[in-house]
């Protein structure tokens, strides 16, 4: 299986703070990789760096053999990277349909268009003229996913899909993921909700304070292993001491 995305010894700094500290991973075509970790572990920073919203200090981001680490975010969209940002970030002054049309404005060739999104979310056509702020949180999340999908990405980056949503809504959104993968999109998913991320993913990558703390296949990992990697309970206290100095 060919590697679609390769991230090699990536370092990202926020000012003097090292947010991503030597992280490497690969995402094969057609797979789902879940990046889990506690608040502040650097998950969102990692996704935003891949999307081009942060610049890495060093390391490379390779998509389909090309280094895309120096491209602007909009050029990365044209290369096939779409981000569903944390907090949804819809265009607040616009209708549902206009949000999708903006997403389609720089679309690549592919199976998705606004019509296809309306099939995927069958409640949308009836409400397409509504302002997005009239939609519920779950509906807004669906629009955000639709807006990213309609650009026909090769990789969909999903940042904290479950944040602030009711469990039933989260379940419904996660139910769509296999269908999205089936249409040829690979997925990189960031979740604070470990169970959710692990359930859907082919592989799991756990971050702790910007460093890789665990990598594996969900079926081969025990809950205890994941908990340790998530909270860092098995790490020696000296690590936290050094971080404070």
């Amino acid at each position, binding site marked *: 299986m060919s590697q679609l995305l390769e991230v090699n010894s990536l370092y990202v700094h926020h000012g003097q703070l090292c947010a991503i500290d030597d992280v490497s991973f690969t995402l094969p075509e057609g797979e789902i990789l879940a990046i889990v970790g506690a608040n502040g572990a650097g998950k969102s920073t990692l996704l935003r760096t891949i999307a081009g919203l942060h610049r890495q200090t060093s390391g490379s981001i390779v998509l389909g053999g090309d280094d895309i680490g120096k491209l602007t975010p909009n050029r990365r969209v044209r290369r096939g990277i779409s981000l569903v940002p944390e907090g949804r*970030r*819809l*265009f607040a002054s616009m209708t549902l349909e206009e949000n999708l049309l*903006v997403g389609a404005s*720089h679309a690549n060739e592919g199976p998705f268009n606004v019509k296809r999104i309306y099939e995927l979310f069958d409640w949308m056509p009836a409400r397409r003229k509504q302002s997005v702020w009239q939609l519920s949180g779950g509906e807004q999340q669906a629009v955000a996913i639709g807006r990213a999908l309609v650009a026909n990405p090769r990789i969909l980056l999903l940042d904290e899909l479950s944040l602030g949503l009711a469990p039933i809504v989260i379940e419904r959104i996660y139910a769509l993921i296999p269908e999205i993968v089936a249409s040829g999109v690979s997925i990189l998913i960031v979740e604070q909700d470990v169970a959710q991320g692990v359930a859907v993913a082919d592989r799991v990558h756990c971050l702790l304070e910007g460093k890789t703390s665990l990598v594996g296949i969900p079926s081969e990992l025990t809950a205890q292993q994941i908990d340790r990697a998530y909270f860092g309970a098995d790490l020696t206290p000296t690590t936290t001491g050094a971080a404070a100095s």
Partner: protein
Amino acid sequence: MIWLNILIQGTLIGGFYALFACGLSLMFGVLKVINLAHGDMAVVAGYVAVFLTPHLHIPEIWSFLVVVPIFGLIGYIVQRTLIQKSIDRDPFTTLLVTFGLSVVIENLLLEVYSANGQTVNIGAIGYESWHPGSIFYISYVSLGVLGTAVLVLLILQMFLSRTNTGRLIRAVADDREAAQMSGANYRHIFGIAAAIAFATVALAGIAYGMMTQFAPTSGGVNLLFAFEAVVIGGIGSLWGTLIGGVALGIAQQFGAHFNVGYQILAGNVLFLIVLAIRPQGLFGRKTALS
């Protein structure tokens, strides 16, 4: 009848303020930049119309057909260079740079063209007016400018809501980062917004030259009025800008009715009252302030 005349004259001049202000409003809405050289661009457009059109062998009344596209281009270039560079530093720098440009442009105009007033010569129609009921007069030029303002706002409104580029401009205004994540090159979109702003203010500058005399210092005064119109109407609302312009025009005419010296003062007072009571403006959203 006197009061009706105040309303009519105020509305006419208010149309001009709205035409002058819509670019300012658009640029603030999209780029979050207040271009303090906005008024000076209008004056430069006036000078270009007066001194360029004789060479083109077209009547000065049609000069806008040439000058407006030129200013659109200038707007795009100035945005992609100077203004973008200052945005990349911080919002603070955009103010310093645009104010610096404003002073430089004004003094350059003084050096080159002196402080003498200029007008865009459109022939006899410039002095003619309509006298309904022979009680008040309505200048054809002012009426034409009001009509132009409404037309420009309508076109702008249609452009922003119906076209792909217009939607991208709104997307960038709403959330620059999210727009980038949809593939939009925000710098290019900024350039387009600036091009529209410069084109409309060039049109306003030529209109001003048809209505009255302008001089190098006219830019500052009109920027002040445009800004007052934007704030009174509500930040980020195009039609609010028209209402704001009309409200300002009426306030000024009302002041002038008592004493010519009170004309501008009355406008300023209305502005300060709106600022004190309803800082988001008549049609603005509160979020625009922070």
